């Protein structure tokens, strides 16, 4: 019992439910029979077609392309700025909001055209420790290595 409790305390946890950490970090959504994809699995029905109960899980690609971005220079106390926030289009047909890392914010502001359609890949990192002592893992995107 003691060992189990300890395992629970130290295991990393995803910052949002649609980030799955095993077998390797990836996003998982649900797809309606009509084709619409959602990240949050807890929904009543499909907001595109209105049908309930026609969802199946879908594992999302860890690669995508930047649609648009902004650079946040002023944020809440305790949040380090600047950071690049982006909307990333995944090949399955869904968009995801996340930080864009390894992209120079100043360069992005000067030449936004070079960021549009930039191929990116998902990466994870420990972003915080929660009140119970778990590592909280967040995901972001960086320019694709290959």
């Amino acid at each position, binding site marked *: 019992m003691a060992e189990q409790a300890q395992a629970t305390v130290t295991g990393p946890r995803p910052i949002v439910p649609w980030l799955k950490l095993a077998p390797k970090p990836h996003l998982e959504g649900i797809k309606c029979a009509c084709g619409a994809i959602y990240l949050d699995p807890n929904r009543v029905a499909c907001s595109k077609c209105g049908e309930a109960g026609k969802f199946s899980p879908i594992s999302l690609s860890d690669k995508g392309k930047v649609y648009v971005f*902004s650079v946040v220079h002023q*944020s809440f106390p305790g*949040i380090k700025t600047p950071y690049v926030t982006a909307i990333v289009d995944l090949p399955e047909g869904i968009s995801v909001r996340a930080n864009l890392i390894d992209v120079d914010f100043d360069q992005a502001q000067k030449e936004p055209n070079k960021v549009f359609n930039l191929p990116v890949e998902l990466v994870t990192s420990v972003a915080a420790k929660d*009140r119970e002592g778990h590592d909280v893992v*967040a995901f972001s995107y960086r320019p694709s290595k290959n």
Partner: protein
Amino acid sequence: MRNVYVLGTGMLKFGRYPEKTVPELGGQAAMLALKDAGITIKDVEMFACGNLYQSNAMVGQRILHQIGQTGIPVINVSNACATGSTAFREAYMSIAAGMYDIAMAVGVEQMGKQGLLGGTGGGDPAYSTEGKVGSGLMPAVFGQAGVEHMRKYGTKFEHFAKISVKSHKHATKNPFSQYRNEVTLEDVMNARMVGYPNTLYMCCPTGDGAAAAILVSEDKLKQLAGGRKRAKVAASVLTSDPWTDRDLTLPDVSTLTRRASKLAYEKAGLGPKDIALTELHDCFATAELVHYENLGLCGDGEAGAFIDSGGGVHPDLGGKAPVNVSGGLLSKGHPLGATGVANICEVVWHLTQDDRAKERLVPNAKAGQAHVIGLGSACTIHILTV
């Protein structure tokens, strides 16, 4: 549906009123509107009150506790930034439907020096996604709407900056405006960046304020107007965000505006060319630019050229199709619940050559429109005519 007219309006200068309460601010605006209409609270049959931050605290009734408890039906409205305009629409509908002949709408808000809006809160802060998994902060969210326009049409940073210069210049003529300082293009472009591409002067301020309107049926107008020129509500439209591909990730402020605009023009029997002035929801300069196209003031992809050729600028300054001659949210201010009613007041004042707009009157204005977006999302458009 019956015709509905605006018999009276009232507005407090937007700014900071730390010594006042929300019911006091709302009550003062209501009294101004009642006086302008030439009636008293005893004549009002229905009251719709718009307020966001105290929406669980019966603001409408507390206003009546300040100005007259007559026992009339009161509804308290909350609809994000479209709160005030939705309250106006409730009052409009109650008369249009034939339920009442005299209704009052008040929009009121006290935000103080509250800073950034948006993002997420509550629960264990370790699971707050702001800054860790992108941003929900308003300057960034609306920044991305502008960046999307850059991506599609090659719009430049400078275009957004020009909007801020224009609105600040307009505000110098508006004594109801929170800020009345002029800024140069260099000031705007070199100001500190808040959420790219929105610099400080491309973001609306937070503040306090209130605005009110008295709406009446045609019969009551004939009885009460006494020959004074009064504006008709030619269209009152409310839409929510329909399903679009990215709406749940990047709020789509365009599709619901376009739909509302189409419905409003149809209802009024007018087109963009007939509109002498537009008050639109410029919470950020990036928002104003995309709404030029959404409201049909120029064609798709032409907003940059529209700005470069004097579009949106007051005719007195050599412009055309004037937008936000009040100074807009960028300068006039954006006390959330008050904004939607204040925009309608502004349009009404131009149509009726009201003294409150005498320094900035758009000449020969026969029709104007007021547009508001509440993120989440709600869009209202009111077209007023004389």
